[in-house]
């Protein structure tokens, strides 16, 4: 346990169990461990749980468990947490740097006075951690972006960014999951579809997972993209 948690009322069907207000890997690990402990506890009346950067949103049905009782259960679960015991899955995600989705690779390299190759090497040389899934189905917020790559978002978002685009937003990195508008900067694309409602596992990544990016060429991207379109997840996690 690193910090004293705060429980914030969130209506009559949810509680927000806040562990930290900032972006911090240790606090996030604690949130994810609490989510796992909550799953394992199998508390009747708990309907959803949403781990985010520093909080766990816990939804409940007040007819089956009252908020006050759930609050006590959460405090006990948190007190008994062993954060170190949590295993983390590792995904190796193929990325074609540049290309159609990598709209910003050249300009970003120029802004940062490095070659596109050096920028790419920095990006795939780091290990990332999934802080949370949110905003859109399967949208993956990643921590671990090397400091030289931190880049503010665009003032005016672009209207169309494809699914699978590899993004940078401030000090965070992302794997886009569904096509749509975005103000992030994009340096490549993965043929992996983080969200495919037709697949047996519709959402691949989960909060707490580790991600390594592995460069692929355009021909490999095209070949893998065809398999992904047929419903293949392309990759499987290691370490479970």
């Amino acid at each position, binding site marked *: 346990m690193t910090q004293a948690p705060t429980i914030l*009322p969130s*209506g009559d069907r949810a509680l927000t169990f806040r562990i930290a207000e900032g972006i911090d890997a240790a606090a996030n690990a604690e949130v994810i461990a609490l989510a796992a402990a909550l799953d394992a506890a199998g508390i009747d009346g708990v309907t*959803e749980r949403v781990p985010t950067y520093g909080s766990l949103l816990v939804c409940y049905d*007040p*007819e089956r468990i009252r908020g006050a009782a759930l609050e006590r259960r959460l405090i006990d679960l948190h007190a008994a947490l062993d954060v170190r015991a949590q295993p983390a899955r590792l995904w190796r995600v193929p990325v074609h740097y540049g290309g159609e989705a990598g709209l910003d690779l050249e300009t970003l390299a120029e802004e940062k006075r490095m070659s596109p190759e050096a920028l790419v090497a920095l990006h795939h040389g780091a290990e990332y951690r999934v802080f949370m899934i949110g905003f859109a189905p399967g949208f993956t917020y990643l921590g671990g972006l090397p400091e030289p790559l931190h880049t503010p978002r665009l003032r005016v978002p672009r209207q169309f960014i494809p699914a699978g685009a590899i993004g940078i937003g401030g000090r965070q990195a992302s794997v886009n999951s569904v096509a749509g508008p975005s103000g992030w900067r994009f340096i490549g694309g993965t043929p992996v579809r983080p969200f495919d409602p037709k697949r047996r596992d519709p*959402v691949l990544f989960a909060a707490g997972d580790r991600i390594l990016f592995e460069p692929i060429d355009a021909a490999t991207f095209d070949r893998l993209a065809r398999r992904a379109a047929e419903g293949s997840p392309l990759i499987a996690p290691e370490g479970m």
Partner: protein
Amino acid sequence: MTVQDAGRRGMLRFGVSGAGPMDPDAMRMANALVGNPADAATLEFAFFGGAIRFGDDRMVAVCGAVRDLRIGGNPVAPWQSHLVRAGQEVTIGAMAEAVWGYVAIGGGIGTQPVLGARSTHLRTGIGGIEGRTLQAGDMLPLGGAEPMPMRKLGAPWRVRSGAIHVVPGPQDDRFGATAVTVFLRGPFTVTQKRDRMAMVLDGPRIHAEMGHDIVSDGTLPGSIQVPGSGQPLVLLSDRQTTGGYPKIATIASVDLPRLAQMVSSRPFRFTAISQSRAEDMLIAHRDSFSRALAEVETAR
């Protein structure tokens, strides 16, 4: 008009919104009137219905404040079921003093479930018919239905009136006491900027002393976010599952459908209650709704 059932469950942690009806009671009532399970898929419309031609004989019920409802050209009443013959058209006019209405058809809408529900989520493009609003010419598959008598409510379903109840939090502490007072004094109206994701409110501007950015956390139907504009935003069924604006309060579950149904010109106020009181109200509301469903009777 979209296909809506009870919505997706247990998917918020994957970033998948629940979707589902804006007025769950009206949807469930419509289903009960045609003999469907309460959470069968229905058609939800906003402001105005449309025309639906039936391919076979079916029971139909429209729940919503519609001005003009006809079957084969003959006026009929909403909030009760009617038999529609093969080839007949049900025409549903504009809503009076409300926004959302439901059409339940015996057997339910039988489109393919996606991620455990038939509900349409427009932004992701899943559920219903190709994840979009219905278009003229769409054919809707239906589930099987047994013949049954026409039904009506035992007594009119009364919706409470008065202030909209809210539970302060989760981030009311970021606003400061003055802002919370201003928020609770109101009054507010729902602006024209409203859809299944959210509705923007007009009224006094709400200023968060500690700023309008938080590290993103989970959102709920009824979360009241306040972005830098100071104009509160009430999140609804199709909202994004996480958000980075502070949330001053959450609308009590009993009052969220009432606010979703509020027409855009009518002023209203918020009143703060505790989480425990809001839970009591929700449990009592479910009891009275169950009694109303139990009193659905054969129409003479």
